[in-house]
């Protein structure tokens, strides 16, 4: 197909947007490779010294483990209850469909700051306070639930009840119908939704910031604290590392699990 001028303009426009999306991240990675003591541009020579400093820093290592742990638990919980709710929403909710959807999206429609504060007051009033990580995990479940729900619901949107009827008339049992009709349809939604949920949880700042207890700082909190007092490129090295880590998770999901999230 021949390229028309309109296509070229369109394509250039899109690539400019991609450049816009990448610039702040690119600049952080570049800053992390700075050999100097401060964030200066252009960098004073390239080196990996700030990565060495970061890997020797116990505080950041612990924060990474905390973040991974919280994100995993929150994603597992949201994945299960969000998927079930999405199936209910599309298949069984009937007239209550819109109400169910609004209920499930509530954590997203309510400001994260407010949810965090509400949860903070709540854990104090029931007496557990911010000890342990219960409050934080609950907060992350609330935060990630709508994303699982939306993804699974979207993958079921074209579900036709007639398929179920047809399968039933052909003698398929309930379990068989679930496995052969429902499961293939929701699978990309579930995995895509969980991936999204994991990333949202790993990124979450406000809720973790207000609900953290002593010694359970997640990576974003640790970084925020660090940035308030330090201006060395170590923060950039930490940031770059966390970007790389997430990238590995995504590539693993896409390539090894062979998942095509976008084709649902």
């Amino acid at each position, binding site marked *: 197909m021949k390229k028309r001028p309109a296509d070229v303009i369109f394509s250039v426009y899109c690539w400019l947007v991609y450049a816009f999306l990448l610039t702040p991240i690119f600049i952080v990675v570049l800053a992390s490779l700075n050999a100097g003591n401060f964030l200066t*541009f252009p960098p004073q020579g390239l080196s990996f010294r700030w990565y060495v400093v970061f890997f020797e820093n116990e505080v950041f290592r612990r924060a990474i483990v905390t973040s991974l742990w919280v994100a995993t638990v929150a994603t597992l919980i949201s994945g299960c209850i969000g998927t079930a709710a999405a199936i209910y929403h599309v298949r069984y909710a009937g007239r209550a469909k819109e109400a169910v959807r609004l209920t499930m999206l509530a954590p997203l429609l309510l400001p994260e700051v407010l949810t965090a504060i509400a949860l903070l007051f709540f854990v104090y009033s029931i007496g557990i306070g911010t000890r342990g990580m219960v409050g934080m995990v609950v907060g992350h479940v609330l935060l990630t639930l709508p994303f699982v729900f939306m993804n699974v619901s979207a993958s079921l949107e074209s579900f036709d009840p007639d398929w179920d009827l047809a399968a039933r008339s052909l003698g398929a049992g309930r379990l068989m119908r679930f496995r052969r009709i429902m499961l293939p349809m929701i699978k990309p939604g579930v995995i895509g939704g969980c991936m999204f949920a994991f990333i949202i949880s790993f990124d979450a700042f406000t809720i973790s910031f207000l609900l953290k207890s002593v010694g359970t700082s997640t990576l974003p909190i640790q970084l925020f604290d660090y940035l308030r007092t330090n201006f060395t490129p170590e923060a950039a090295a930490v940031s770059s590392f966390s970007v790389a880590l997430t990238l590995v998770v995504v590539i693993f999901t896409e390539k090894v699990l062979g998942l095509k999230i976008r084709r649902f």
Partner: protein
Amino acid sequence: MPVLRRANSPMLLFLPALLVLAVFLLVPYLNILVMSFRTPGQGIPYAPGWTFGNYTKFFSDWFFIGQMANTLWIGFATTLACLLIGYPVALQLARGSDRLRGLRYGIVLTPLLVGVVIRSYGWTILLGNNGVINRTLIGWGLIDGPLPLMYNGLGIIIALTHVLLPFMILPVMGAIQGIDPALGLAARSLGAGRSTVFRRVTLPLSLPGVQAGCILVFVLSVSAYVTPALIGGLRVKTVAVSVVDALIDTFQWPFGSAMALILSVVGGLCVLAFARATRMKWAAAR
């Protein structure tokens, strides 16, 4: 999922999520509602007794009303910017099929893969008075002094647009992908040009995605805390930043609660008005 075997109780599917939302969202919000009517205390979060004072304090002070207007303005501007910047990209991603598509999809997701603190940090390096952009422009002799890119509304809008673009692009892309390609082909075979197909088929059918994206971006930008806190600095404060200041720094639990509730009610009303207006208009467009 053995639950599915019980034909008469599909409600069980919804129950766990409903319980979580009721106990950990509804009850805490009622709690915060109660808190907003408590009497402010000296040195303690709240004193005994009840009052409307926290609400009247907000609405009788032009400082807070201006802050609310500023917050909403930032939300509208960010939403519009995300829509204009994001729609073409969503279209390209949904329809394109070349080998670079995976890469481009990955690029769109990058802001989501990178924590909000890291992204704001990147913008600080770029937009600051001593930042990359100002240094470069001064270096080239284009400007004499640094442009005010940070510590103002513009900086917050730029950073929020970057942060929230994926929330616009993904729903729009999903909606466009959900359109049967045969519809476009049918229209073409009936003699419609490419722009007509876009205007009459693709655009109207993608509007549910646009609506979802706009609501997401607006809500997330109005309630954003980290980006305005880091980019806005001390000079420009959004309501969300003031709320956290009131609660964490000065321990004004009742007033902070009232302020937070006012923010969410105003934001919710905007979303409702938008949803109602767009539903009517878009129904007519089809």
